[in-house]
């Protein structure tokens, strides 16, 4: 029952993120900020933090597996690792924000700033909520509240965490990777559509 609820919630949230991504793509095409994205963003650093976030999905899965086998300590360790990885990602994102903002690049600078900060910012907020959830989970787990009959609590929270993780993979691909593949993709697309 809880898992169904979380899946529906995640589906609903997915539409929220798709709306933000549509705005991003729309501005990418109309304002042609592919080269600007290349100049401002550091794909290597972000790539490392992205790797950490992907890893955190794995550690959470390990934690759940340990719990299901009755190994509470192991589950706590894996869960702690998940929290650390998530927090590290958030720290990395904060650092990137700090670098951009102190360089005078803000949400109001241009279309790229607007859609970049909004999309990554909303993802960061979701991640923060996920960290709070995992923290609560850790507390419950350590006090023994998640034994046996509450088996699906971790699975439910896990759906949310994996979702936030998956959203980032898409966002990362869209914002950081695509400009490297084809920084001038957008103008061609526009030409093809309008025939001009």
């Amino acid at each position, binding site marked *: 029952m809880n898992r*169904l609820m979380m899946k529906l919630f995640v589906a609903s949230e997915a539409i929220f993120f798709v709306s933000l991504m549509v*705005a991003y793509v729309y501005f990418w095409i109309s304002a042609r900020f592919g080269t600007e994205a290349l100049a401002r963003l550091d794909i290597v650093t972000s790539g490392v933090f992205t790797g950490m976030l992907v890893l955190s999905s794995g550690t959470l899965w390990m934690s759940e597996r340990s719990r299901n086998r009755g190994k509470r300590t192991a589950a706590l360790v894996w869960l702690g690792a998940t929290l650390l990885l998530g927090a590290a990602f958030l720290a990395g994102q904060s650092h990137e924000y700090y670098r951009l903002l102190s360089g005078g690049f803000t949400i109001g600078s*241009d279309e790229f700033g607007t859609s970049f900060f909004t999309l990554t910012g909303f993802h960061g907020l979701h991640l923060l909520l996920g960290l709070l959830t995992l923290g609560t989970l850790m507390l419950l787990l350590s006090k023994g509240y998640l034994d046996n009959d509450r088996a699906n609590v971790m699975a439910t929270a896990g759906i949310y965490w994996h979702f936030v993780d998956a959203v980032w993979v898409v966002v990362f691909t869209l914002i950081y990777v695509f400009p490297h593949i084809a920084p001038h993709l957008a103008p061609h697309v526009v030409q093809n559509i309008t025939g001009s």
Partner: protein
Amino acid sequence: MESLLHVPEPAEPLPSATTRRGLLEWISSVDHKQVGIMYQWVALLFFLAGGALALMMRVQLSVANNRFLSPEVYNQFFTMHGTVMIFFVLMPALIGAGVYLVPLMIGANEMAYPRLNALSMWLTLFGGLLLFFSFLTGGAPDAGWFNYAPLTEEVYTGSGINYYCMGLLIAGIGSVAAGLNFVVTILKMRVPDMSLKRMPLFVWMMLITAFLILGALPSLNAALSMLLLDRLLHAMFFVNTHGSPLLWQHLFWLFGHPEVYILILPAFGIFSEVFPVFSRKPIFGYSFVVASGIAIALLAYGVWMHHMFAAGLGNTVNAFFSASSLLIGVPTGVKIFNWLGTMYGGSIRLRMPMLFAVAFLIEFTIGGLTGIMFAIVPIDWQVTDSYVVVAHLHYVFVGGSLFGVFAGLFYWFPKMSGKMLDEKLGRVFFWLFVIGFNLTFLIQHWLGMIGMPRRVYTYLDFPHYTLFNMISTVGAFLMAASVFVLLWNIFKSIRSGEVAPPDPWDANTLEWYTDSPPSLKNFERVPPVTSDRPLYDFKHSHQPDDAT
């Protein structure tokens, strides 16, 4: 009797007050029945406020060159009227009906998430209050209920738009939570024998509505967030120099058109309960009602640009959305025939719920036909932003959704309160309201055709303008008078109305099996569910051939 099914309690006791403690009992309650009733009070509160705004607009428009309201105030009033009636009257009234009835109809004792349920209701109330708070801060939102950019940007408007964004965001989060709650409740908490094919049609329509909410509200929430970022942090999503005002229209109507069906499908559900009970026949074409509901929900996501024909998106786009909009008329038409077929050959009892149901068939068909007209691009271009649009949307929202709310009110009031609503006062209310409604809005079709634009605070004394507007205003006052009759009816019936038996209408569904009003625990046991009319089967179990 020995075959009655046992109904399980929620897994753990809930923090609801079990003894009568007045207001505190209600505020602290997570009982779905109390939350459902509070939804109705919220809707009534905002209905009176939104109605008062409308009445003042009609006073302003009653004669040419009137100076009763200034243009600024008039803009705020029509914006608030539309926003409040859609988000804080029709939505809470219909969602609240679902919250009250769905567990009772599926033989459950609670919603799946009772605390979340209460949270949804309070978010709706406070979202609405926040919206109204804008009046005290130097002006309400004034850019129309669909709030088009770039008019809504910082440079053009005051702080009202911020309250629009925040109020609707808060209420929107509440609606998403309610949608989640409905889907899980309906899919997981039905009594064992109630397969999907035996679910009452109201529950079916709430299920479809819940999916529409989950799919549609996020794009509105995203758009509202972007607009807030534009206004508060100087982002540039919808500013006309850098961003794209058109993007707002896309995101808004991607929510906005499914929203129309979020408001009408629960009403369809109510009518699908009322028609069989008051025609003393099973519903005609149960599976067609369900299937056409699903078809409407799917098509609802593919028609949004018919709100944007005037934006100049090109013939290809217009043709596609014109066709899909015409197509969505088909499943709606199917339902009309389901209800007509249910009435055909039945022994009809014209009690209050049925009166509203029959009136709905006529009024909603008028609104539906003008809707078909608007799907045709050249007609849309000719009359868009005129009073024809105003007339059309009131025929579907009032003649469809609000008549559904009224039919449901008269039908389920005995269950909710334990008292019958007065039938005589009900008829006075009905005729005053229906006559007033048609007087107000039928004439607006012609008013629009002769060229009166919507959303202007006054007009010059062109031929017919003053007469038509005066007729419309008189109708509005009749509706206002009828609302007082309704309020008096509710007040009088709660105090000294006729006591309602558990099953006053000789109805079909499980909510009529329990007491009126139901105890905190809805059911100890329920009859076995053998069809979509479990209570009917139970009452007639000694005459097995009677069912046809």
